């Protein structure tokens, strides 16, 4: 795509611009090398790996239980969702039956974590567009979730709560009461977010028709999560391949219409509402019983196994090859942001720097998850 200036002067006046690794809008240590034509980004080349820790190698050198904390350190905003995939994988491989109550607790905490992740995503996105206030409102609500989860998991961000066979601690009445309070609070707050952000004319003008993703592009890049659902494709692992006990709950998959940045934002807002529904149903149906199965030390049989869950940013696959010991022979982690970031060069070719920030923010990236 050539701009008017370019048709007149050729490409000689293009120059390189380093966006990141320490740029306010790259949300961490992502670096994008831009070839700029004035304010238009003509070519983009994302450079990854600044936060690389080689989690996959770490998994190969320690028993499966030693890898629980690592799962939280990939996607630090959706730590519980990442643990969910890992323990699910171990249980599927080792054939561990999980008690009913533990499954319900898992769903409740996972959905709470999803809400907190989406709140950060939305808040940071609007911050990218230059509005300072919504992120603090979002953090205010997120704070309530962190308090609730801190009381039972012991940490506020990098939770290590799920174990193969259940969860490490039972929840109490305080947890249930506070969670119900949070559901009411959050439902009351949603109209405020829509007033403040969704109906804001500047926000609409900035996000509509920016960063269009269609089905073809989604397939070629393997996009998942809200990024995909904004384009009107109702793909959610919780529905298509129900894991844990997600098939017991009544919830919808919100989808967008145009596949632009605004739709992706709106999908995240709607998903908060749907997650609240799931939590409410799970609290209503919460059975009594143990929260941890009586398990021996987990031995991984020889063979392969895949476990896919819906993390906050999309489909997350753990793929494990076992060799009969308690240490994985190979663990591949397919993280959603990795695929969601990869269309960036195609998505943002020839658009304004401001729109690049809009489009990149709408992908809701967590860079440590991409770098692993």
């Amino acid at each position, binding site marked *: 795509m050539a701009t008017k200036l370019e048709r007149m002067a050729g490409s000689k006046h293009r120059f390189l611009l380093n966006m990141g690794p320490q740029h306010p809008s790259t949300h961490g240590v992502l670096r994008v090398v831009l070839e700029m034509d004035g304010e238009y980004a003509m070519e983009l080349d994302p450079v*990854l*790996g600044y936060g*690389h820790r*080689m989690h*996959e*190698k770490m998994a*190969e050198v320690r028993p499966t239980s030693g890898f629980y904390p690592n799962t939280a350190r990939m996607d630090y905003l959706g730590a519980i969702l990442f643990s969910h995939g890992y323990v699910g*994988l171990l249980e*599927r491989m080792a054939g561990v039956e999980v008690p009913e109550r533990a499954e319900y607790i898992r769903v409740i905490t996972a959905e709470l974590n999803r809400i907190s992740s989406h709140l950060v995503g939305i808040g940071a996105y609007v911050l990218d567009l230059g509005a300072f206030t919504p992120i603090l409102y979002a953090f205010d609500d997120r704070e309530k979730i962190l308090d609730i989860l801190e009381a039972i998991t012991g940490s506020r961000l990098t939770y290590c709560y799920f174990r193969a066979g259940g969860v490490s601690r039972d929840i109490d009445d305080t947890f249930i009461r506070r969670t119900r309070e949070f559901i009411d609070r959050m439902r009351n707050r949603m109209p405020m977010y829509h007033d403040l952000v969704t109906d804001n004319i500047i926000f609409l003008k900035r996000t509509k028709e920016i960063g269009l993703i269609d*089905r073809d592009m*989604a*397939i*070629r*890049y*393997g*996009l*998942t999560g809200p990024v*995909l659902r904004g384009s009107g*494709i109702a*793909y959610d692992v919780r529905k*298509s*391949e129900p894991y844990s006990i997600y098939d017991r709950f009544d919830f919808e998959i919100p989808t967008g219409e145009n596949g632009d940045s605004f739709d992706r934002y709106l999908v995240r807002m709607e998903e908060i509402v749907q997650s609240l529904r799931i939590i409410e149903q799970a609290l209503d149906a919460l059975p009594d019983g143990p929260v941890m199965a009586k398990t021996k030390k987990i031995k991984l*049989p*020889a*063979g*392969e*196994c*895949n*476990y*896919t869950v819906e993390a906050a940013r999309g*489909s997350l*696959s753990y*793929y494990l*090859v*076992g*060799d*009969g010991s308690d240490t994985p*022979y*190979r663990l*591949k982690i*397919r993280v959603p942001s*990795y*695929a969601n970031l*990869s*269309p960036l060069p*195609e998505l943002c070719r020839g658009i304004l720097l401001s729109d690049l920030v809009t489009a990149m923010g709408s992908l809701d990236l967590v860079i440590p998850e991409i*770098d*692993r």
Partner: protein
Amino acid sequence: MKSSEAILKLMEAGFQAESVDVNGVGYHVRAHVDAEQVRSFAQWLLAQGFFIDFLTAVDASPRIQMIYQFAHYDHPCRINARVPLPDSGAIDTISDIYQGADWHERETRDFFGVHFSGHHNLVPLILCDEDKDLKPLLKKEGDRKSLEEIGWADVPAAD
């Protein structure tokens, strides 16, 4: 497309495929694909509307095994294909068919040293330039397991 239907279609297109227990291994269809077939396999999947889930490798003796996994947006049908890497250490790229495979292939090159012939930009992605030949996920000589030991003996290794 249901998984049974997918298998039929895969067979029609000239690929080996079998149904597997989804609760056991976590995917619906296991495809047997040769290294030469990778590109036509990917083209077939793209035509059927599958999206790329991931692409990686597992180091085992006698040769590295490539893992391709695809899934579908509209139907619960997850296809997994294990492709033995030829002795040349190179396999055809699918990054021009599935652009999303671009980064997965570069990452696999970083971690295993697998060469993807035809890849337009096979430079280090995750590792830095100094470490580009580190290949951290290759097993040490004594640690490398044979295909039988990691439960893959049932499939004959293609040559």
